[in-house]
């Protein structure tokens, strides 16, 4: 290859390099607002969404408090995209939703509006993770995001850990955006969202230091769920009903039952707590005429709750020493029955199905173009529950 050709090729590569680098408009990391969590509220007066975004704010300089790495920014708009654009207008940074792990829906939002308007924006977004947690709050999401646990920093990370990692072991159900959106599209279009309530700890002294210590500190109660049908709020289940729901429709464990100790031993406490360490629920359906007989069979393993014992340890772990008598197991069984009865009363009253009765019916008897509740009205369903409780 002669010298002239080599120079031409080099010049061509140089021109290409310049052209390509001008042509790509990727975003510098510092120009992005990396969102860890979002809270959405509804302003009934202005009919606008209020978004509270927890944005990563890396600490820098000796005057910054160690551990402070996120800030809260608010945005308003008629739609989600409008509200997020408002954040861009305020911060000069485009919201990057790829790291967002939780979506909190304020009470004003989920009780007064159609959730589809809000959630469809995130569901259809390619950047927003469909595996992000979605939950409701008691009160405004904005207020909740301005709180913190005594031992942690980021509110979003705290709630995500609470809902996802601890969720399976302490009977706290959680749902993802993907699962909730699907639940609102099929069969009875019923689904649940966890409800988070902030409980302020008034005993904690407010620190004199600047920074996050000025936020109210407390704990979060999230052992109840709210039911939604067709993207509209139906009702919030209480503790008892929510526990029954977790037994019937989820693989959550950690449900606690108080039983009277009937061992013949004066040193045992009178009341002990039994915790569910393994739980499975099988549902079978049988159509008889226009009635559908549904049988739930719950197989629960329990153990007396001791310090250091948190639940399911897997099949390769040894069994614990038995501590519960048949009478105590019967007490647990009776408690479970009572809870389930309360749940089914609510289901009948509000006409929803979040325990997959209609799904089981469709799997066995096939799908149809007719809406499922026209095909099989709720009042034609006869429910029987069998509970087997054994000790782990």
């Amino acid at each position: 290859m002669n010298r002239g050709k080599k120079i031409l090729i080099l010049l061509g590569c140089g021109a290409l390099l310049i052209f390509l680098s001008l042509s790509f408009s990727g975003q510098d990391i510092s120009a992005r607002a990396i969102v860890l969590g979002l809270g959405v509220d509804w302003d009934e007066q202005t009919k606008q969404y209020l978004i509270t975004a927890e944005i990563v704010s890396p600490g820098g300089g000796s005057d910054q408090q160690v551990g402070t790495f996120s800030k809260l920014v608010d945005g308003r708009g008629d739609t989600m995209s409008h509200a997020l654009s408002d954040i861009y207008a305020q911060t000069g940074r485009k919201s990057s939703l790829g790291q967002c792990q939780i979506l909190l829906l304020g009470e004003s939002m989920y009780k007064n509006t159609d959730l589809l308007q809000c959630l469809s924006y995130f569901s259809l977004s390619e950047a927003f993770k469909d595996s992000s947690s979605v939950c409701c709050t008691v009160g405004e999401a904005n207020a909740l995001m301005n709180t913190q646990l005594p031992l942690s920093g980021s509110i979003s990370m705290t709630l995500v850990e609470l809902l996802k990692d601890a969720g399976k072991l302490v009977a706290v159900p959680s749902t993802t955006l993907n699962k909730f959106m699907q639940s609102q599209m099929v069969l009875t279009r019923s689904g649940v969202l966890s409800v988070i309530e902030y409980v302020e700890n008034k005993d904690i002294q407010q620190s004199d230091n600047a920074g996050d210590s000025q936020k109210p500190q407390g704990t979060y109660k999230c052992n109840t769920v709210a039911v939604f049908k067709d993207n509209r709020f139906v009702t919030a289940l209480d503790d008892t009903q929510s526990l029954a729901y977790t037994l019937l429709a989820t693989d959550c464990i950690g449900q606690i039952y108080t039983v009277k100790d009937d061992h013949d031993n004066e040193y045992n406490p009178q009341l002990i707590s039994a915790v569910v360490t393994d739980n499975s629920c099988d549902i079978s359906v049988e159509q008889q005429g226009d009635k559908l007989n549904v049988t739930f069979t719950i197989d629960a393993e329990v153990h007396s709750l001791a310090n250091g014992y948190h639940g399911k340890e897997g099949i390769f772990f040894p069994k614990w020493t038995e501590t519960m008598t048949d009478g105590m197991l019967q007490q647990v069984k009776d408690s479970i029955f009572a809870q389930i009865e309360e749940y089914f009363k609510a289901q009948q009253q509000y006409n929803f199905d979040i325990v997959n009765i209609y799904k089981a019916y469709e799997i066995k008897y096939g799908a149809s173009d007719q809406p499922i509740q026209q095909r099989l009205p709720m009042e034609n369903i006869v429910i029987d529950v069998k509970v087997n409780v054994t000790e782990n």
Partner: protein
Amino acid sequence: MMQNKVKWSQIALILLLIVPGGKYLSLPAALAQQVGKDSWIVIAVLLLLDAICLAMTIKAAVINKHNLSFNSVLTNTVGAVPSKVIYVIFFVLLQMRIITLMASVYKLFAATFTIRSSWVGFWLPISAFCLLVVAKGFKTIARLNQLLSVLVMFSLVSILIYPATQLDVRNLLPLPQSDFATILQGTFNSTFWFADYMFLFFVLDSICPSRHPYVSVMSGFGVGAVLTVLMNVLFIALYGPLAPYTDLAMSKVSQFALALNTNGRLDWLSLSVWTTSVFIKLALFTFSAYKCLQFLIGNKQLKFNYWIGAIVVVFSLTPLFLSSDKLLKYMLPYTVYPFCVVQYVLPLFLPLLVKIANNKHDKRIVEKLNLSEVAANE
């Protein structure tokens, strides 16, 4: 350019990578819109058809004892004019496949990594890469594929393995959701995205003989096919009724990967590596389109022709004037019929055509020998 031959094992590895490559972008959502939850059944049926046609193509290559090129086979059997019609159909099909794939990758980068560029800025490096590997020869594509195959398969498995633990099998039930007619119609309408083995037609004369070509090639294809079906099953099981409303399946499913929720978007790394399989597929289609155009205009030179290469890649600039979605929407309803002929009917008859062409070649050799004997006697 075509002097170097490839092995059947390299062909098998190519199929292993390109069969799933590119079918996890817009295709799953498009299929879900047509047939709902039964889209994985459509994919399984089409891959079964592909397997049959692939086996016939291998047979054709094996019995091609005189190493006749695809052009020679067609010219000596169906004739020159029908051959050119077949090349035109192939060329249009391959260009549409290239444009669709490029548009999907462009969208993947824009949506997932928030990297947007002009189409020309996106097209230039990809076209340069495709032309470079085509100029180097098919063996270069095969070697490149060999080098990247382990990384790509590892990244694909790492993307899919954790989401697989979170799927809800009930989303697939009841089975099937649609009636037979809908599934059949969906199968026919989706043939455009399949028949990835087409490149074999253009390398009929460049494959080293092997004792067990069927075993290696069908195994490679089979694993790729199973992965493709499982990927779609995973997508439907994860998204259920939401599937028709999504766009890029890989971008959506990878979000669930590697328990990454508190550890950052590690799925983006795996996604980037997996995308190289799509680039390899683009290079293969470019190679095939090059050969089509070469046969079409009657160019017989072995050296790479830059003008033909330039014409091949310039068609990928079509999205500057017409989006890929509109291109498919307006052209596919009419072109699906001739496409089906070259994708599925031609391979079934290819062994017969190869046999006839080889027999004719034998006769010509015998005639030449006789003539030379007569000339020698005289």
